[in-house]
């Protein structure tokens, strides 16, 4: 069995400030931050990542929280474990799509230790939380040497396993605005094996106008079909301002599949992944619409 066979210095800051100081002490190449480590430890075992300093922030309990307020919306500390997001009653009530996404994220063992912030910062294009958060129009709070800033979740992942984090910055909080009235959100991913990473995933948020007929706003996010999660803006444009029908959703699915830029690997071809996008957008749209009508 593979173990980590190189030595490193282990640093366990007790506060965010301490962590940020440590981050600034070492350059990007020599240090690595570990939260739940569900992906990182595997990469270290495979010698793909070999830091000299490992900064363990898993113990920063200050960053482990779920807060909700009718005005400010939802705030999730970056070190909140997946399982807490999944089981949170307030999330189940106000943002059930997040809880549903978590239910099918890997397995319960991973969700019991892995953190939602770690997942997002790992920036796997197949990661589920980022896709849902983009559909939810979420923002991410980053803390760094020059203080704190926020950015759209949509802009956070820039390429395969690459983020917009600047040297010395840490992802600290996920902020999800309150859903506008008459909004329905749905997420789905497809793979042959339950609980596996998705070959393709789609999250869609549909907001209907007052009469619940016309689509006043829509956000469609795709996962696993580009170097980073993306928004299918052309597909959104097809639905925006229209009365959504099955035919229109099919058209949006077609547009989204053209916006995707999937690759071929041993699991599936790019052609099939596009087909998945086409079908999943249609299916997710039907459910998001039904939810919007019920909302």
């Amino acid at each position, binding site marked *: *069995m*593979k*173990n*980590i*066979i*190189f*030595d*490193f*210095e*282990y640093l*366990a800051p007790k506060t965010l400030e301490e962590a940020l100081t440590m981050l600034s002490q070492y350059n990007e190449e020599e240090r690595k931050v*570990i939260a739940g*480590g*569900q*992906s990182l*430890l*595997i990469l270290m*075992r*495979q010698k793909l990542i070999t830091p000299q300093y*490992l900064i*363990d922030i*898993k*113990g920063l309990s200050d960053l482990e929280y779920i807060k909700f307020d009718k005005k400010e919306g939802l705030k999730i500390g970056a070190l909140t474990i997946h*399982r807490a997001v999944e089981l949170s009653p307030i999330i189940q009530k106000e943002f059930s799509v997040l809880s549903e996404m978590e*239910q099918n994220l*890997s*397995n*319960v*063992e*991973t969700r*019991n*230790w892995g953190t939602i912030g770690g997942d997002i910062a790992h920036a796997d294009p197949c990661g589920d939380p980022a896709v849902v958060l983009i559909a939810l129009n979420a923002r991410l709070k980053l803390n760094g040497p020059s203080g704190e800033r926020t950015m759209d979740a949509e802009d956070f992942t820039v390429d395969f396993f690459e983020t917009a984090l600047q040297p010395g910055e840490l992802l600290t909080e996920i902020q999800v605005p309150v859903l506008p009235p008459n909004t329905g959100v749905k997420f789905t991913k497809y793979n042959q094996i*339950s*609980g596996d990473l998705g070959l393709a995933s789609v999250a869609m948020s549909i907001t209907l106008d007052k009469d619940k007929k016309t689509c006043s706003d829509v956000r469609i996010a795709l996962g696993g079909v580009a170097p980073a999660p993306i928004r299918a803006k052309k597909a959104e444009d097809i639905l925006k301002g229209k009365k959504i029908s099955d035919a229109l959703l099919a058209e949006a699915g077609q547009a989204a599949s053209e916006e995707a830029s999937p690759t071929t690997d041993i699991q599936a071809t790019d052609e099939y992944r596009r087909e998945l996008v086409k079908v999943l957008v249609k299916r997710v749209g039907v459910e998001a619409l039904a939810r919007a009508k019920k909302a």
Partner: protein
Amino acid sequence: MKKQLKFIVNGNPYDIWIEPRLLLVQVLRDELRLTGTHRGCDSGTCCVCTVNIDGKAVKSCSVLALQANGKEVLTIEGMANGPKLHPVQEAFVDNWAFQCGFCTSGQIMASNALLKENPNPTREEVQHAMDGHLCRCTGYNMINEAIRDAAGRLQAQKSEEKAK
């Protein structure tokens, strides 16, 4: 440089110094000689090494040992009550819920955590909770039945204790 690890395993306090690179599973198996926890993969995708940390099922290959500092770890060796098997273990034997037995420790530890959260799970709930566990032998159905059988045994045990 070695670091101090203080934690509780199966109710016993440990205070040891270890290399930071060690995974929890290495410390359990190699340092503490608790070899009942097995290992099946190098990718965190088989759940064979599952233990309980503070009552939750966690993969011991995907946790740095130092991250378990201050935690309570339960392994398969801590399940039985002296010479008496735990009801989950009994149910696994009675239902032929293992064959080669190599993934069994992980299956039982996950079942233990599941039944604490959900004392009376349905077939589907068990499937969902045990989904990460790779078993090459059984086809899973007999494990599922054992877990639900164990649920009944635990409830019976509880009501017995209450009656006392």
